[in-house]
């Protein structure tokens, strides 16, 4: 057994675990945050995507110990107060999900993209979600959802700036 201490969505979790435990299992079984999904369990499908110290990773292909003394952000951390984030709202409005199993992973990849490239082209969006597989939508609606979110976040930022300048 090894001791792990990791922050998930701002909350500290400490436990004695089998070193074999994957980060995904630590998140789902220990922290009981079941939004991150196990799809392929071999780092291909991206349904388990979370952020580790700000970088997207596939939590099924990482030992939980790799999150020791680090910060994890899961899908639950995107809407901590129960209100959907603008990105999630745009997925909802643009029908960017059908069965929803892959959605948590797509949202994490999309969040990472928009943090680093606020005005992505459709090509750049497709590149950014390359590590995520969706068997329902055919991807087009996901691309549209992310493009809409980029636009909305830009507008919100402008409004904030305007409000600041006005005050």
């Amino acid at each position, binding site marked *: 057994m*090894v001791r792990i201490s990791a922050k998930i969505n701002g909350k500290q979790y400490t436990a004695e675990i*089998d*070193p*074999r435990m*994957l980060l995904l299992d630590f998140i789902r079984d220990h922290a009981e945050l079941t939004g991150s999904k196990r799809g392929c*369990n*071999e*780092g291909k499908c*991206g349904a388990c*995507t979370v952020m*580790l110290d700000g*970088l*997207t*990773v*596939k939590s099924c*292909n*990482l*030992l939980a*110990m*790799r999150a*020791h003394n680090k910060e994890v952000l899961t899908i639950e951390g995107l809407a901590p107060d129960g209100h959907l984030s603008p990105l999630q709202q745009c997925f909802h409005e643009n029908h960017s999900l059908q069965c929803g199993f892959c959605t948590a992973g797509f949202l994490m*990849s999309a969040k*990472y993209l928009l943090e680093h490239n606020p005005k992505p082209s459709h090509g750049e969006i497709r590149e*950014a979600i*390359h*590590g995520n597989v969706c068997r329902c939508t055919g991807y087009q609606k996901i691309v549209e959802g992310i493009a809409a979110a980029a636009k909305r976040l830009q507008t919100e930022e402008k409004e904030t700036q305007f409000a600041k300048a006005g005050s």
Partner: protein
Amino acid sequence: MRSFEYFRPSSLDEAVKLMAKYGPQARVLAGGQSLLNMMKLRIASPQYLVDLCELRDLTTAAVDSGGRLRVGAMVTYHQMQQSGLLNSSYGAISDALEVIADEQIRHVGTLGGSCCQADPHGDMPNVVVALDAEMEAVNSKGRRTIPARQFFTGLLQTALASEEILVNLYFPKQPASTGSAYEKFAWRKGDYAIISAAAVVSIGSGGKCERASVVIGSAQSSPLLLEKAPAVLVGKQVSAELIERVAGAAFEEVEPEADALYGSSEYKKELVRTLTGRSLLTAWQRAQKGVN
């Protein structure tokens, strides 16, 4: 996954001691993007896992005083992409970074890890062989340097002894007007290559080729450094027509292994021709820019 004892050394010394103690029963964990999958399938079942994630020295990359590019074995693909160190002579590295797996995996996977994995369908082994890199390894007795061209010894096999740890990769300073490129063919971007080619071209004043190397990946169990094909180019005025002849020579030289899934040897030979041509053409164009 079979159970193992997990170690997380905080210094290289400590890691070296652990590897000396546990030797063949131990595996080093770098990014783990291949090793963990092998452990899940029980293809690999190390009794001891030595995780190098705390060794910060191995996560740095820089050009040293001699002009060599030193890349720590734990530098991730993502860190490499962000480093700003990859000029046109290292174009093959940049190209490979674009086509390795996907973003999530590039955030974790490491240059050193992919070389030690020595997957015949991997990307980085071909690039380090083409650029004539040197691999620096340590064990309890000291350090040694292994030329990349002698590092890959077979399917998932390297020249490293079981207790050795790869710590650095050194890419030699390239002559002025050198360009390199990497091309791969796969069904989907980011998949393992069916065939890949890495090329390096140096041109002198007047546009004559002074040096050329071509490495074919996925054709055999380790990166294949071509002997005959690049000789067609060296000493001559480079042109698109001449590169086409080199590609033809590569087609003649390489006998790829057939496999049931990805195709016959004949099919892969055509890929060798096409990708050799493409990678040489890009390497030549980059060399002409003369940016080094």
